[in-house]
């Protein structure tokens, strides 16, 4: 089987065994630096507009701790399972890699479902992207993050399916590694979202 044969001659840390692999990893880290500025700008905008509810429901009235806690726990766990996937990559164990990545994707889907349910609830309470400046800022920031989660799910799923045919090689390894970096990054962004948007909203005070 091509997979088994590829594993036998696969170098250690296969994701950086080729120049292409190294380039992809470096390029992706640089991209994450740019994404830091992107999300940071959305955070800055949110912070400036957080109190502008235009007479509609405010953060205090909307946010519900259990949902946020579950979402956070699910996403954090999915980040951990993607770590396990990369460890499997380094042990050159394709089956384990696929398994852990599948769990990651399923957890990601659970996160998204919870978020869609949450947004739907808010819309019924009158909090929409068009209802106030706070609404616009909230849905753009949290929605962009959700969009990134959705893209990540599609990406990792595609990689898992590809690996069924192509196995683990010096070409497919960097793809998994980079996808894991991406997944960790969106969890790091979520850490700031639950802190700055939800928790700080539930204190009900302005920054500083």
């Amino acid at each position, binding site marked *: 089987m091509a997979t088994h044969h590829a594993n036998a001659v696969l170098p250690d840390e296969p994701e950086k065994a080729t120049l292409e692999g190294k*380039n992809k990893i470096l390029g992706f880290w640089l991209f994450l630096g740019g994404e830091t500025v992107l999300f940071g700008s959305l955070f800055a905008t949110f912070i*400036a507009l957080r109190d502008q509810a235009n007479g509609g429901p405010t953060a205090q009235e909307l946010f519900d701790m259990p949902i946020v806690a579950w979402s956070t726990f699910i996403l954090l766990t999915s980040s951990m399972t993607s770590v396990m996937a990369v460890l499997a990559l380094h042990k050159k164990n394709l089956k384990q890699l696929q398994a852990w990545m599948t769990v990651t994707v399923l957890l990601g889907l659970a996160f998204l479902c919870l978020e869609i349910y949450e947004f739907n609830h808010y819309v019924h309470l009158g909090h929409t992207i068009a209802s106030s400046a706070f609404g616009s800022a909230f849905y753009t920031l949290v929605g962009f993050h959700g969009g990134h989660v959705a893209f990540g799910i599609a990406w990792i799923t*595609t990689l898992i399916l590809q690996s069924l045919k192509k196995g683990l090689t010096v070409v497919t390894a960097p793809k998994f590694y980079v996808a894991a970096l991406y997944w960790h990054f969106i969890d790091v962004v979520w850490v700031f979202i639950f802190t700055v948007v939800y928790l700080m909203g539930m204190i009900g005070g302005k920054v500083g």
Partner: protein
Amino acid sequence: MSAHASHAPKRSGLWDWLTTVDHKKIAILYLVAGGIFFLAGGIEALLIRLQLMYPESNVIGAKTFNEMITMHGTTMIFLAAMPIIFALMNAVVPLQIGARDVAFPFVNALGFWLFFFGGVLINTSWFLGGAPDAGWTSYPTLALNQYSGIGVDFYVLGLQIAGLGTLIGGINFLVTIINMRAPGMTFMRMPLFTWTSFVTSGLILFAFPAITVGLVLLMFDRLFGGNFFNPDAGGNIIIFEHLFWIFGHPEVYILILPCFGIISEVVSTFSKKRLFGYSSMVFATALIGFLGFMVWAHHMFTTGLGPVANTLFGLATMLIAVPTGIKIFNWLFTMWGGQIRFNVPNLWAVGFIPTFTIGGMTGVMLSVPSADYQYHDSYFVVAHFHYVIVGGVVFGLFAGLYYWWPKMFGKMLNETLGKWNFWTFFIGFHLTFFPLHFLGLMGMPRRVYTFLHGQGLDLGNFISTIGSFGMTIGTILFLINVVVTANSKQKAPADPWDGRTLEWAIPSPPPEYNFAQTPLVRGLDALWVEKMAGNKGYVPAEPLGSIHMPSPSIIPFVMSVGLFIAAYGFMFHQYVLAGIGLAITFGSMLARSLKDDHGYHIDPEEIEEKGVKA
């Protein structure tokens, strides 16, 4: 597993250009597209100056005037200057570092096509309801639906697409320069053009996301009922200004730093002298890049941020003059005592130095917040930025084009025509923009389509318009030069200028693979080191072997078309169309991911003196 073709797939004509991933061809694509947009921007400028030639004139009406100033600025900055900069970066940087291509050839092509379709999108607005007319800075509330037409949607969507192209281009050059330098080329042995390209790419990486967010927020307000900038629902327009200028200020350093690099290369080559103060040049470049992110609110002194903010940003702005001054002095010291030849590239470089310095000086004048309350939104500002952007960026790009034309095209641009081009453009430039300082000091505001008799503004405006005719003639002479050169039968040598850096060690134009063997770099000014050691060319770092090349692909073109279509879908609220466009783009990404591209090989036998035909 797909077997890879052992020979270059034979492609020719249009298909070759649509599918190329070769950085040298992509450079030419950027140059041609950027050049065409430059002409469009130039015509827009000419119409502006014609309208302002006489008081109370009506050559073009007020509405068209607003479209002209918006499109002139947007086109020149995003669709002309940046692409031509990318053209030179693509043509030269891989050669200067001894590499065979950039890190991500496919992404390189994608960057070009995204820019191209973004630029075309913006320009179709002329025919589809009116061009954007809220200024190149497109501030809300003027840019919101209530106060402007559909043109602003073209601006918002077109720039997002083009901006994405620029961002990925920046990442590409960062990885290329970090990971793909030839053995022996440490960071402190890189040529200055590569250094400035490196810092510029870092600026692009961190600045473009900010404007992307600003444009997205504006798009949400215009298309989806958002309230970011709607004060009635709690929005705040200052947010847009901050986001725009957090991008906008680094953007002008993105424009000028590569040109600083060009000047360093040209001045040292044509003085036959190593660049004075290399380390301080590198340090100054990095410092300018860093400080460039700390000064953005100097575009907002009059918005009511208060004295503390104004002071901090004013001081930081003045500080940038220091590393810039270091550069100017280093160029002068390089020329001092050198054997100076005034070929056309050096004419442009020597014309750049005093002109840019004047622009820098007025910049320091503007950096004083209390003084800026008088200058802001007057023609004084217009004079300042044209001195640095035209006198700096455009002069620098002309210098780079004349310098590297033989390397890109295998022919030298005509010297005589070049001298006429330089002098008419140079004199025309000063005639156009010097009077604007005084018009501003006399109180003429920006962005007005006319002025009244008896305000004392007649003579300045008249002279300025005459000057613009001079710049027009200069530009036409350049075009004539390009055509004459294309038709001539000359072949440029590998090293027409007795150069100091690695790009002059390979044929003009280079073979597809650039270097038959990766060079070994033994010092700063890598080629000069070899020349002084008595070698004929570079020292190879590896034996002759099979060269691996990336395969061409139509996917970058298709992906860009997809976004182009989706943009129309969004702006006209045809969401099925938008969905189709996005499906084309994402589908192409999927296709790219699924199909392994192993490239192809060029065997040593095919590597002759003249190189392999593409």
